[in-house]
């Protein structure tokens, strides 16, 4: 039995029927060592995923170029977070994506030291329980006064400008490591 906690729009994807499923495993140190690997990975998967959108779409649905632009920003933020915030004995970063007809779900998994979980949980709860516009401006102001690492501006932009819904799961792996899974649900409908 794995001890796990979930927050926000977390969905158990085990039983989900997808049109297509992709996965890739990387090493967090490799991403941090050459930062360009984050954008390389996000550019690759954003293009790959956007090709599931037909060349022409009915009104009200995201076209291929618009979706690719959304995904490039989303995935770059998620890969950068894995590179920035991984720690402890497990260095694996896992990318997974489920393509469905009306939505796409992306899941990035990285690992942190157990002592960092409470602060991250607090960060997530603030993100999920506040008005995103208000929190965005509050974070901009705080950020202007001090150099805050992990201000949440990336997540907030994605929530308020792109309508992306996030879910989070923490799972203890032994007593040295916690797997952090971040799920992003992207609707294929225009906002």
């Amino acid at each position, binding site marked *: 039995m794995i001890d796990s906690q979930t927050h926000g729009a977390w969905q158990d994807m085990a039983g989900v029927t997808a049109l297509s499923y992709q996965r890739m495993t990387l090493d967090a140190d490799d991403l941090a060592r050459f930062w360009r690997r984050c*954008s390389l990975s996000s550019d690759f998967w954003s293009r790959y995923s956007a090709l599931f959108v037909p060349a022409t779409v009915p009104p009200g649905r995201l076209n291929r170029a618009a979706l690719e*632009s959304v995904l490039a*920003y989303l995935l770059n933020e998620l890969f950068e977070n894995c590179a920035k915030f991984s720690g402890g004995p497990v260095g694996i970063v896992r990318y997974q994506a489920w393509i469905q007809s009306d939505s796409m779900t992306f899941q990035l998994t990285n690992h942190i030291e157990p002592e960092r979980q409470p602060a991250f949980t607090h960060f997530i709860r603030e993100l999920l329980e506040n008005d995103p516009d208000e929190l965005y*401006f509050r974070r901009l102001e705080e950020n*202007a006064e001090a150099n805050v690492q992990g201000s949440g501006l*990336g997540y907030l932009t994605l929530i308020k400008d792109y309508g992306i819904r996030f879910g989070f799961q923490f799972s203890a792996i032994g007593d040295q490591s916690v797997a952090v899974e971040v799920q992003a649900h992207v609707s294929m409908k225009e906002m």
Partner: protein
Amino acid sequence: MLAVEQIKGDEYTVEHDPGAHTVTFKGTIRLQTSDDYLPMTQLLQAAHDSAAGERLSLDFRQLQFLNSSGISTISKFVIGAASRISFSSTWWAITISTGSRSRWAISRSSGPRFR
């Protein structure tokens, strides 16, 4: 004639034209840390100083991509600049919209967002 200052990376350039009081951002900017963004912060501060009370324009029309660290860097500069300028009736608000690649704006608004 004042010289144009430029920061050039693999995928981007940031240019300050002191004659036109404009800083132009082009390409894709996805740097790692605030230290990596320091040259851009310094260029923006120098541009602000050299504008000496004139309007300074930040031109994002050719910017294709900016990561959240970049949004943070630029908004930090704008908030800092706004705090050094006094406005009689309006307040500064910042909207850096990343909804599509061409939609960027840092604008003045009537909402009391910043002091």
